[in-house]
């Protein structure tokens, strides 16, 4: 779905293999993003009053936490070259189930949270099962399921929110740890670490990558790709549910509109973070850290631009230009480094 050349760190290209470990690090997408983030953060911190205030840092961190989680949810299904348009719908459905359990049914939080995440996985399972059994592209299946999941949720809730959740839930959204760091960001970092280990060291994680890189080869080597794809969709569902719960904590209530009509508001952050971070849309390569850095970059840029008070209606255009400048700069850095490395 994307240019082969877009893969900045293409493991298969021999010239990279020749470079030293340091060189490979310097060439990596993650390194470039980290550099850009440091640069943007430095400039904003020096020039914008209030950018480094505890409140500002807290809100930035919290936003990064939520957007990263949304990005990870999409990343988990991009691994196999599929996609899931229904992440937002799943996230909201899980949040509403959580709201029902915690507020109406009186289920204690330590039980309600895993139940909601499990519910997200079940919705993911439905997606995965239909995709595998029908052989239709996940784009179409999840387009339909987005409509169905969200429609059932709206029908059952009649668009009403759950706004009398146990006080611990809104408190989570405001909780700061170690100064200005949001607890939601900490949760995301823990999930990032777990996912990194999962993709690197577990059989299932490695099989997901193998199935994404080359489904036929994976099948021949005995991997049951159908099951793997279903597992990916379940992981996506669970992560989307977690993102929905984090948003619920931030909002202090389970709100049907928190991801917009049909949950479409999530689609942009869901794709943007992983793709900026170097995940290939065609599958086979993921970068958990890249997704985190991608979300961080976008959040910091947005926050900086808002503080700069560019004309009321021009922020979006500026954000687009910045994004373009950033990826161009990264591309340039890569070319320069590679040219030097070749000499």
């Amino acid at each position: 779905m994307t240019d082969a050349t877009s893969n900045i760190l293409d493991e298969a290209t021999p010239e990279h293999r020749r470079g030293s470990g340091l060189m490979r690090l310097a060439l990596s997408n993650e390194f470039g993003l980290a550099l850009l983030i440091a640069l943007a953060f430095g400039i904003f911190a020096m020039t914008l009053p209030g950018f480094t205030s505890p409140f500002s840092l807290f809100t930035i961190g919290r936003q990064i936490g939520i957007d990263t989680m949304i990005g990870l949810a999409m990343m988990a299904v991009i691994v196999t070259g599929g996609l899931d348009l229904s992440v937002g719908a799943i996230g909201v459905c899980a949040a509403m189930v959580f709201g029902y359990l915690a507020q109406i049914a009186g289920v204690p939080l330590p039980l309600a949270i895993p139940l909601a995440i499990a519910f997200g996985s079940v919705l993911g399972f439905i997606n995965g099962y239909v995709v595998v059994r029908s052989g239709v592209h996940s784009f179409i299946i999840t387009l339909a399921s987005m409509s169905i999941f969200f429609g059932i949720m709206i029908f059952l809730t009649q668009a009403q929110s759950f706004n009398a959740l146990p006080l611990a839930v809104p408190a989570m959204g405001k909780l700061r740890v170690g100064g200005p760091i949001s607890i939601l960001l900490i949760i995301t970092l823990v999930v990032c670490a777990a996912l990194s280990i999962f993709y690197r060291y577990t059989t299932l994680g490695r099989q997901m990558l193998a199935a994404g890189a080359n489904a036929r080869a994976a099948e021949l080597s005995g991997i049951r790709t159908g099951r793997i794809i279903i597992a990916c969709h379940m992981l996506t569902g669970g992560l989307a549910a977690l993102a929905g719960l984090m948003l619920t904590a931030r909002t202090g209530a389970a709100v049907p509109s928190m991801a917009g009509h049909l949950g479409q508001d999530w689609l942009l952050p869901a794709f943007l973070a992983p793709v900026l971070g170097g995940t290939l849309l065609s599958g086979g390569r993921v970068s958990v850290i890249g997704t985190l850095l991608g979300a961080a970059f976008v959040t910091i840029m947005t926050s900086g631009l808002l503080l700069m008070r560019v004309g009321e209606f021009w922020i979006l255009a500026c954000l687009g230009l910045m994004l373009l400048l950033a990826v161009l700069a990264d591309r340039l850095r890569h070319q320069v480094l590679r040219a030097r490395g070749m000499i």
Partner: protein
Amino acid sequence: MKSVAKITAALLLGAVACSPALADPGTKVALVPGGPHPYFAAWEQAGKDAMKDFNLGAGDYRVPQKWELAQQSTLLESLLTQGYNSFLIFPGDAVGTNATVSEIVDNGGQAIATAGCLKDPTPALFCLGTDTGNSAYLGTKELIKAMGGKGRIAHFTGFLVDPNTQLRIDAVQKAADETNGDVTVVQVIADIDAPQPAEEKINAYLAAHAADVDGIVTTAWVPAVTAANSLRKIGDKRIKMVGIDHDEVVLQAIKDGFVNGTMLQNPYGQGYLGSYVLDKLRTGCTLKADAPWKSNALTAKFVDSGTVFVDAATADTYVDAMRGITKTLLANFEKDFMACK
């Protein structure tokens, strides 16, 4: 890379240089709608006028780039960081925006839910807006009157995720029920607050059912515009219609006789009065607990910013009518709702 960095830095510095210095302030009001929408255009002028008339530190209209709850929250957090201390907010969600408002209050700011209410319990001071349910109810009553007291009504409205939509559906139904079966609501079409789907669905409906309806009531901006255009297109003056808001298309259709009238809201008055109250409250006044608050489905602290039915006779003079309402509101507010030292 270097040159790009230079350009980036120059861009940043340039933008920073343009922004005004943040010296102290007084009451810095930010008027924040839920997203870009023509309804709120009057807020910009209202903020400017209030800033001049009441000597405010700021009266700025700041718009989220999209209709997304998250975008609005991010903008509000940023405005708080920028030193704004008073907010007029159209809630992106009646419940969801409460969290952001409570953050504003925690950081020493104050906010009024404007043009739409926040659901109780809320940290917002009160809600200043159109009583959406009542407006839909009154509009439907006008429509029923125009239809001669009986017939079938179609109702076109906005997004279902907006709780106001449910209030409107119920209000239209209530007005119809009061006729004891003479008037029935035959169809509700929702989720059409965007031009293209609105056009497709409304035209499809009229194509199949134009003969089966006698009246149309619309309770959202885009469907009102689209339905007015569709009636003009099929040249039908038999079907009566009552719209909402003051889009040029709707007003022109009223003058030309395709639409019977529209329920006007008072966005300018909301912005102007809201800024005034926020300044008063910051400089020594308090809200009276026993003030004559109205209540609606969302909150028990509601102030009606006024709604007016405009038909062909009044389509040219509605601005004066709204000014009059705003003046009365402003004159009575300090007396009725505030205790000042």
